[in-house]
């Protein structure tokens, strides 16, 4: 009978062991395995103990049927010899056995105990390294990769490595020892019977291989259909209003039914075939059993074998299939482990931001003078989008960045804050080249309010104090009042202690923006970067945001991604962007007078419709 696997971790279903599709293949198995070994290095000694414990436990487990067989032999001997059964001898064997079972169980548990600690510590190390890596990668990495991918490294991939380590590692040891040990025991009982038992093996292996192959195909088909189904459902549900208003329900249902039929047909086949395994194995092992009974009977009749030996042999035969199918599965386990690990290692090997040891300090008091000197930059090395741009911004000036959607207005922000480094030229703040200053220090100079208001799961007070950790409640409230956020915060059930979460959406987009303004006010940086875009903000909140932003930018050098004419017109300098490049600069009146791109943009706003 199939032994049940322990439900360790609890995430993989209990049927996890037997099922599964074509395993993912890593690109470079050897190299990945070597890197995994590096992670295992601190645990060599403990892993040694694990191996020893596994070996002891397995050897004891293998010995027990033989000894139990001796017990039976003792009974038979008593019956045949007409002297009666020697209960003393039986008791002796019995106590031996009890000891053996207990020791085996103890070592088996010791092995799991150690191994689970090791695998969890490695899980921890993987996650820690990934999170550290996130903060070391340049921003360009994240604009080219999906967030979900990185999240899946932290959860799915790490999880599968830890599960496989936990079960797989010890399985390799125990399975091999079990196979060798059982073979040795079987041969020692009778080589004739061993040959017969071994003859059954190839038959059962091919049969199992056949079923596994077929069931794998259907399993893969089922997974594919399942993926398609999940995708369709997600898409239809997330666009519910559109599906309804464009009468798409019947088409959506039609497609759903198609997929559902596909899923059903591959699903039941896959399930049926994987369920075949157990009865088939049982049938085969029964064939072996009968064969062994026949041969064993013949040997016993000739007096060359005791009944207890036959009994032991049958027990061994029953135990033989499990380690073999486990070993067959080990290759898959190792491969999927390596595939998951490979993805993580590839992520950990990504190029990091340039290191910054010989950095220069900034002056203590920042005036806020910014000079862009002959700046060239492109997101891709061979495609420059800003070419040889220069500008001189005096302290406390307001700079408006304007341009149509997709003109790359955030590029300038990325450069000022050193999210990206320049390809050529330099940016000087108060005369110091920011490329020679630590990134952290550069960023500290700016307060930032972006369009996508990023708030983290935590209280409102914590979110406002994000830029100044040790701010007092009094300071936080003051900043919130200056940002016109105090009023709405007080209408929330827990005021400043209300927890903002992804799901509980009691706060509107505009209110979130007010919070980020409060955050910038509290951070009190000498310079500012503001994004005025206020889509999905109602007009009254917009007015509040505007007033708060005006207050914030007063007396600070500020760069405003401007959408509002009043901001643009009162700016000391307007930078006009198009296709990533800065095409014009000057004040409103200067730019209008030059009849260039800005003038064209301005006119289009007031075309009579």
């Amino acid at each position, binding site marked *: 009978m199939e032994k049940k696997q322990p439900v360790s971790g609890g995430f993989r279903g209990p049927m996890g062991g037997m099922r599964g599709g074509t395993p993912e293949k890593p690109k470079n198995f050897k190299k990945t395995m070597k890197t995994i070994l590096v992670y295992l290095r601190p645990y060599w000694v403990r892993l040694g103990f694990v191996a020893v414990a596994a070996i002891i*436990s397995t050897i004891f487990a293998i010995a027990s049927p033989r000894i139990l067989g001796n017990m039976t032999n003792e009974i038979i001997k008593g019956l045949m010899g007409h002297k009666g059964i020697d209960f003393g001898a039986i008791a002796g064997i019995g106590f031996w056995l009890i000891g053996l079972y207990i020791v085996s169980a103890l070592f088996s548990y010791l092995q799991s105990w150690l191994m689970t600690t090791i695998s969890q510590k490695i899980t921890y190390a993987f996650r820690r390294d990934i999170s550290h890596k996130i903060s070391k990668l340049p921003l360009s990495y994240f604009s080219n990769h999906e967030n979900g991918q990185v999240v899946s490294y932290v959860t799915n991939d790490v999880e599968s490595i830890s599960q496989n380590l936990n079960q797989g590692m010890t399985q390799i040891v125990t399975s091999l020892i079990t196979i060798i040990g059982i073979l040795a025991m079987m041969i020692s009982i009778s080589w004739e019977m061993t040959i017969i038992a071994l003859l059954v093996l190839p038959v059962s292996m091919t049969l199992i291989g056949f079923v596994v192959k077929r069931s794998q195909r259907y399993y893969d088909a089922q997974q594919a259909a399942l993926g398609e189904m999940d995708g369709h459902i997600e898409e239809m549900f997330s666009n519910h209003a559109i599906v309804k208003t464009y009468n798409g329900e019947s088409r959506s249902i039609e497609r759903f039914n198609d997929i559902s039929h596909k899923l059903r047909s591959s699903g039941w086949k896959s399930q049926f075939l994987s369920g075949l395994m157990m009865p088939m194995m049982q049938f085969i092992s029964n064939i072996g059993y009968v064969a062994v009974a026949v041969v064993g009977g013949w040997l016993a009749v000739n007096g060359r074998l005791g009944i207890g030996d036959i009994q032991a042999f049958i027990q061994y035969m029953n135990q033989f299939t499990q380690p073999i199918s486990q070993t067959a599965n080990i290759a898959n386990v190792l491969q999927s482990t390596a595939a998951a690990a490979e993805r993580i290692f590839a992520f950990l090997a990504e190029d990091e931001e340039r290191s910054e040891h010989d950095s220069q300090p900034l002056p203590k008091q920042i005036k806020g003078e910014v000079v862009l000197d002959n700046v060239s930059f492109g997101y891709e090395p061979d495609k420059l989008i800003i070419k040889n741009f220069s500008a001189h911004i005096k302290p406390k000036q307001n700079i408006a960045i304007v341009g149509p959607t997709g003109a790359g207005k955030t590029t300038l922000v990325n450069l000022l804050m050193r999210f990206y480094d320049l390809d050529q030229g330099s940016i000087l703040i108060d005369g110091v080249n920011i490329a020679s200053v630590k990134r952290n220090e550069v960023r500290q100079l700016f307060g930032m309010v972006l369009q996508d208001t990023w708030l983290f799961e935590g209280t409102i007070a914590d979110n406002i104090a994000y830029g100044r950790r040790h701010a007092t409640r009094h300071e936080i409230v003051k900043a919130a009042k200056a940002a016109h956020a105090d009023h709405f915060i007080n209408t929330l059930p827990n005021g400043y202690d209300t927890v903002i979460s992804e799901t509980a959406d009691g706060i509107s987009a505009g209110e979130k923006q007010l919070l980020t303004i409060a955050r910038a006010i509290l951070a009190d940086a000498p310079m500012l970067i503001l994004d005025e875009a206020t889509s*999905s903000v109602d007009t009254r909140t917009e007015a509040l945001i505007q007033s708060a932003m005006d207050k914030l930018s007063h007396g600070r050098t500020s760069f405003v991604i401007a959408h509002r004419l009043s901001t643009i017109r009162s700016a000391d300098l307007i930078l006009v962007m198009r296709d990533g490049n800065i095409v014009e600069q000057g004040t409103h009146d200067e730019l209008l007078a030059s009849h260039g791109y800005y003038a064209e943009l301005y006119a289009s706003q*007031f075309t009579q419709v």
Partner: protein
Amino acid sequence: MLLVLVVFVSGQAYVNLTLPDYMSKIINDGIVGKDQSSIWLNGLQMLGLTLFGGLCAMAIGFIAARIATGYVHKLRSAVFMQVERFSLAEFNSFSSSSLTTRATNDMQQIQTVMAMVLRMAFLAPFMGVGSIIKAFQLAPSMSWIILASVGALVLMIVMLFFVAIPKFTIIQKLVDKLSLQTREMLTGIRVIRAYNNDHREQSKFDETNQQSINLNIFVNRVMMLMQPVMTLIMGLASMAVVWVGAYAISDGSLKVGNLLALMQYVMQTIMAFLMISFVFIMVPRAAVSGRRINEVLSVKPTISDPKKVKHLPKRINGKVEFKDVNFGYSGSKQLVLSGVSFVAEPGQTTAIIGGTGSGKSTLVNLIPRLYDVTSGSITIDGIDIRDIKQAELRQHIGYIPQKASLFSGTIKSNITYGSYDATDSDMQAAASTAQATEFISGLPEQFDSSVAQAGNNLSGGQKQRLSIARALAKKPEVYLFDDSFSALDFKTDAALRQALNQEITKATLIIVAQRISTIMQADKIIVLDDGQIVGVGTHQELIKTSKVYREIAESQLSAAELGEDK
């Protein structure tokens, strides 16, 4: 089906229970009795029996797989169709992601558990009880071995799960928290770096990471007791059978061969109880899923087609009239809209403006019956929209939501989503009016370029233009723009409005907007405040008469642009 299943199950149970008999016969008659032919005879019979048992097991697997997948197939269809019938009111009471989980993960959960339960739930009791009876018949003195081992086993399982199961939920929560924190680190990366908070984020993550592994170590240590203890119990039980059997054999009440059979029965009983405890663990999980699905199925869609339908002509004029409309979400006492009455005439632009929570979007959602009015009525060409079939009504409406939502497919399939029969030139015209031609022609495969799920490979402005083109390709008589312009920069916004005005001359345009400049030229502007109409008129009129309107306008435009000096 179930009855057939039970027949096969009893077949398999019978085989499993009789096989040990033959084993002991082989030993007793064949080996001990030195009768070679009896070994052959019993061996062959055994093989036949095994074959029969195997066939039964296969049949059980077949039936279980068919029933489980078939049932879930039906259930899933039912849920999906139910959700497709939902109006926004029912839909939003669940949230889209929750409904998705219910239709996917919960279904899978039920299917897996059901197949397993079908295979084990019937077999296990047969086997368990049968084995105990058989063992009792052979050697009554040994029943205590079975009872003791089963007792020990059940006790262990109950204890393990009592300790471990509550922890599983916590582990799952910690995993969710880890993924949430990673997501936060990624989405907030600029803000984190701007405020130099890398270390703080990392220490937060580290704390969760530590909690998670500590708990995992604990739970694994508990759960891993299972395997060694089980092996121990089984080993001790076999040994006890032989040991105790020695006495029975000695007083002649038991034959040697029966020892093997007894050992088999003990194992089978233990297995049976393992299966039963498995069922007990799995079923509650599936029950939770089942309850969640039932919640969806038990909701009665509030909007359904009328029994007596009125039909609209093929082309309508598109005059939309609100007559004293009140609307409140079900379960909420507060009205979102109250006493709203206005007419939107064909060939005219009717704009709606107002603060957050003023009910603008809700008002627009009422027209295609995404929600139904609480009282009052909305008519289209004089016919109450509740008397028209939903599909027919919606045929005449082009709805452009605030957040553009696209489908995976191609640019073409997205534009023609509402108009399957649109020709290529219809589609191109729609794209051109929506100011989308320029960016589409820049794509590698123009109209056949693929669109990723939710349009993730397009920018916000591009998505919005496609969503507008989708409405235009439908050539409806009523357009509903629910603040659809705010994702566009002002240049595109202006060009688009100009193109719309040239193209759409006969249709009714209803525009919800934030920017005054977007609606300044509308024929009629309706100012909403707190669900009530507080002003109706043109821009010039409202600037003078409506305080709310003036407030909004002043925050956006300077005096000259407000047109006061004109």
